[in-house]
């Protein structure tokens, strides 16, 4: 072992996790740069505009037109309402079906079958029944969002480990205590899987209906821009909606992290003196 070989390696060194993150952002920035250059110099402006033009369109007209802002606000409201309804009814139905053997074994397959229906084929019907306003969009988001919540509530209740239940029973827990301390914490992870999926599907349902109804709301503007070959505001509006979708997904993720027992960061453990972590690496 020579002294030179033992000298710490100097120069360029970056923790791997940071390098990964940087690369990820570099890919995204590279894609934006490509779109900018392609849009500026090569593309037909009727179909494609550079990123800078899209950003300009974001400020004007998208974020300065009160009609668009109102439509965006309404969309956010519709997503929130549809999602709230999905959670309330989804978990109620889920608990009702999952709480006993017979309804679970008989009705759960029916739910799964309904879940498999491509709801998009019902879209014209929903609009026919609920009209062109927010009601149709909220219902369509709700009808998309409710199924994953039912399904994951039921499977979360079923997954409650028999062993935990028996352990709790042997410790003399009452039925209410078992539900509160065993069944409920146990179904939380699965329930959040349902919440995440439900958010994705609620967004899909609301936006599908928004785009379908082209006489008002977001759908009116997307159609307007697409048919007048005005890509910059179309891209900008799409970008805003994508940001809204990402924000909603982010909210669910944050709620999941804060509310799931066992997912919160573990409290720091003090390392006893003399336990050299470098040494254990060998």
């Amino acid at each position, binding site marked *: 072992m020579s002294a030179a070989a033992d000298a710490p390696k100097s120069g360029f060194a970056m923790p791997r996790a940071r390098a990964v993150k940087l690369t990820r952002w570099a890919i995204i920035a590279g894609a934006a740069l490509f779109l900018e250059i392609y849009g500026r110099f090569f593309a037909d402006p009727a179909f494609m505009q550079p990123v800078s033009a899209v950003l300009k369109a974001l400020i004007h007209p998208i974020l300065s037109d009160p009609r668009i802002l109102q439509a965006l606000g309404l969309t956010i409201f519709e997503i929130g309402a549809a999602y709230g309804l999905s959670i309330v009814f989804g978990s109620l139905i889920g608990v009702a079906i999952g709480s006993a053997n017979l309804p679970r074994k008989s009705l759960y397959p029916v739910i799964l079958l309904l879940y498999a229906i*491509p709801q998009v084929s019902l879209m014209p019907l929903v609009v026919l029944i609920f009209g062109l306003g927010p009601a149709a969009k909220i219902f369509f988001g709700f009808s998309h969002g409710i199924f994953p919540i039912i399904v994951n509530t039921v499977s979360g209740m079923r997954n409650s480990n028999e062993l935990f239940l028996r352990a709790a029973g042997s410790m003399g827990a009452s039925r209410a205590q078992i539900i509160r301390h065993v069944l409920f914490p146990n179904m939380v992870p699965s329930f959040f899987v349902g919440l995440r999926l439900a958010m994705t599907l609620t967004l899909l349902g609301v936006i599908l209906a928004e785009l379908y109804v082209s006489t008002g709301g977001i759908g009116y503007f997307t159609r307007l821009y697409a048919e007048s070959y005005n890509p910059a505001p179309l891209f900008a509006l799409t970008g805003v909606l994508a940001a809204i979708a990402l924000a909603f997904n982010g909210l669910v993720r944050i709620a999941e992290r804060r509310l799931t027992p066992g997912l919160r960061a573990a409290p720091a453990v003090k390392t006893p003196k003399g336990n050299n972590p470098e040494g254990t690496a060998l």
Partner: protein
Amino acid sequence: MKSENAAQRIIQFAFIALAGGAWYWATAAGKISPLFLPRPESVWNAFNRLLTLGQFWPPVRITLLTIAQAYAIAALCGILAGYLVTRSKFATEAVEPIIAGLFTIPITLFFPMFILFFGIGTGSKIAYGAVYGFFPIALSAIAGLGHVDERYLRAAQTMGASRLETFRHVLLPYAFPVILTGLRIGFFICFASVLGGETLSSVSGVGRNIALAAELMEPARMYAWIAFVILTAVSLNMLVTALENHAARRAGRS
């Protein structure tokens, strides 16, 4: 055990009978406007009229062809992307979250762009269905191909397998069960998004016919199309589930 099974069947049957009965009762008693819910027999008649007038198979053919093309593109590109991304652990860690993050955004948002780029014909639906179907397939391909047991790769390497041979004989068979899940999800997403695209903005296909019937206030015809779509999707789903159960049983036996 047996009586429990029977009870399940009875409840399921009762559920379906109740729904059907409610449909009959509500429409016969005139509780619901036939505009929202037409009588079952008029839906049946509308379906028969579609068949006899030759208006059924042409849109079905267009939609099926669109789905097939979109799905083929999604599957090929998805698996190829999964393969390329997983060639290095670093690339996997950098790229996978981008794809997963994009997939949490409803791709439907971008549908107007597809219309802008590819027009109102089948091209935009193929592209839209392909892009939507690409994500679950690519993600499952990354998950599957990114976690192939080192032992098998090393063995193939020492035996002199070429890149293509390693992919064909080691990576793909190892990752296939995982990729298959993505292919299944991707198919149903492709199916729904092509229909959705046709419903949103199109000149032909099954989705367009549903929307058209709604616009023309012909609920019986609309219900006939919807029933066709639902029955197709549900039976495809049951078929795939049965195939998967069969494969799982076979794998469990050996």
